[in-house]
């Protein structure tokens, strides 16, 4: 359960560090899930579905980047409205492509591949080593992003510089706009893959609003993780665990109200951002558009 969350927030972390609060992760995931479902359905191959998801995620992210970086539109307004647009467009598209019984149609999905030996480790084994190919790819991508943009590397420092003080970064020769575009597009890719993972690896179908708020959790995980990779990972794991509790509770013999458990990750997220994890400081350039002083 934590995997789509982890993947989406690994991109979002970069874009927020570069100063773009990408509230539209939810919309990007939804777009990815829908495009992945359509691609897989039309071609009969899940791999093509993943590819279409990435392309659609890039297009959606390009729109978001154009609005919030080049046109300097309010990032909160564009983020939330872009999510509404994605919800409307995918619901509309699902009616056209899949007809009214959208949720019922089974798609060519990805099957889990167990890693020999490792998947027999109790508890951890099934969680980590019985993923689909896309799942392993997601792990690898999230890890690669965290390492490549660590604060000990030039690339990571550049991203942080752009997010903290875009004007100074620009004066020292960093391509501010290009870096911001890059991080938003990257978020589009990771979020779309996360959405495709939901639709193709986990559910094997597309239903209206399939993401149901996971994208917002990804944004919150970054904030709760204080804009650092490892704490963000931890936040994703906690939220993901809270999510999977709604399926695991009956098996564990817990008789808790199901709707209560659905809301649980959001309660955790609220507690996390409201300071249980300690005071934090956002990148000072977050949501501030960059205008070069003339």
């Amino acid at each position: 359960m934590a995997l789509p969350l982890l993947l989406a927030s690994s991109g979002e972390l970069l874009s927020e560090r570069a100063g773009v609060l990408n509230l539209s992760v939810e919309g990007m995931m939804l777009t990815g899930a829908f495009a992945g479902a359509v691609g897989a359905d039309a071609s009969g191959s899940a791999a093509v579905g993943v590819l279409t998801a990435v392309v659609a995620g890039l297009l959606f992210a390009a729109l978001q980047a154009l609005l919030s970086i080049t046109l300097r539109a309010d990032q909160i307004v564009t983020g939330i409205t872009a999510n509404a647009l994605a919800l409307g467009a995918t619901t509309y598209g699902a009616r056209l492509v899949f007809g009214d019984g959208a949720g019922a149609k089974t798609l060519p999905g990805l099957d889990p591949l167990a890693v020999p030996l490792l998947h027999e480790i109790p508890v951890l084994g099934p969680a980590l080593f019985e993923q689909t190919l896309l799942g392993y790819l997601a792990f690898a991508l999230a890890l690669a992003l965290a390492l490549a943009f660590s604060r000990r590397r030039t690339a990571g420092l550049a991203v942080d510089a752009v997010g903290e003080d875009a004007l100074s970064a620009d004066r020292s020769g960093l391509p501010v706009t290009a870096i911001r575009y890059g991080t938003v597009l990257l978020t589009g890719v990771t979020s779309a893959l996360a959405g495709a993972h939901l639709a193709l690896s986990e559910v094997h179908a597309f239903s209206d609003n399939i993401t149901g708020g996971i994208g917002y959790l990804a944004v919150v995980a970054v904030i709760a993780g204080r804009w650092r990779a490892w704490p963000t990972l931890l936040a994703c794991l906690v939220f993901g665990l809270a999510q999977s509790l709604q399926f695991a509770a009956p098996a564990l013999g817990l008789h808790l109200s199901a709707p209560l458990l659905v809301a649980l990750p959001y309660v955790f997220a609220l507690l996390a951002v409201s300071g249980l994890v300690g005071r934090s400081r956002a990148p000072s350039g977050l949501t501030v558009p960059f205008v070069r002083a003339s």
Partner: protein
Amino acid sequence: MSAPVTTTQPPSPPPPDPHPPRPAALDPTRLRLALRAAPRHPLAVAGLAALFALGVGMLLVLAAGAELATAWQALDEGMFGSPYAIGSSLNSAAVLALIAAGFTVAHRAGLVNVGGEGQLCAGGTAAAAVGLALPAGVPAALGVPLVLVAGFLAGAAWAGIAAWLRVRRGTSEVITTLLLNFIGIGLVSVAVHEEALLRQPVTSSETLPQSAPLPTGAQLPLIGGPESPATAVVPIAVLAVVVTGIVLRHTALGLRLRAVGHSPAASARLGLPVGRLEGGGLAVAGGLAGVAGAALVATAPYVLAEHFSSGYGFAGLVVGLLARGSLTAVAAASLLFGFLTSGGINLQLAAQVPASTVQIVQSVLVLSIAAAMLFTTRRPGSRR
């Protein structure tokens, strides 16, 4: 949308500074020069954005395989075709206007209330609890105000959580109100699933997870003709918009809120109770959304059920974003969105065009206005 024009501009000549030249689209002065001829007045921009959104809508209708004329007729029928259509459109518009008016109050204090949906859920739950606790023969003059006040208080308390976190711990209200939406939706689910809470007595396996109907004295009175479903929520919303308009524009309180919105630091220097003004603004926003939730519960079929909010909280937020701080715009946009929502339902029923077309058109409208704001001379309503 005249933005793409600029991307074809040739690169600017090398500036005297050592930086390499940038593509013209990224250079704000050039952008402004190129768009000097473009309309600047916010109303003109809104008109262009509306035309663009309308064009998108027509494409979507065609893509769904419907005739434009059929679709237009269906939309018109759903909006103005009958007293029923007009009445339910007005009810929708009123609910949206309540939420958007609240959004504008918080916005004036520099806060963005993304939590309309959660506050609406809290208000609706409290309204149902109070309404069901009233005796069956309660007079409407007592029952209706009690239900609405319960909605206001619960909505304000729900927003109060975010306000408290914002003032005490400095947590961004955008994030907290957003999260409280999902928790509020969960709250309604829990309330209508548990018999110990608000679920109607379960008599068979087919008993729906919803509350029992509110007693007659707690139901909002109808105000239209015999066929119109328009309820007292319409005058309540008009009152709310007018009162907030007057308070924000013509009173000292309105000026203080605006001062805090412009600069919390300067306001604190002047001795304004910044935290109380911010928190109060957000609480009023939540309260009005809570009244909207109470009104939804106190309208036919007079029950609290899952999804009773029908996404009004998010739609009201979009209206608030679109209005950009103006209450006149709140009234206009609520009417537009309210009628479009009713029309959209009929669009699906009569012309087989997905109702989500309306949602897409609305989002495109807001996005294109947000995108075009760079080109208007002045930004109305600064956010912080």
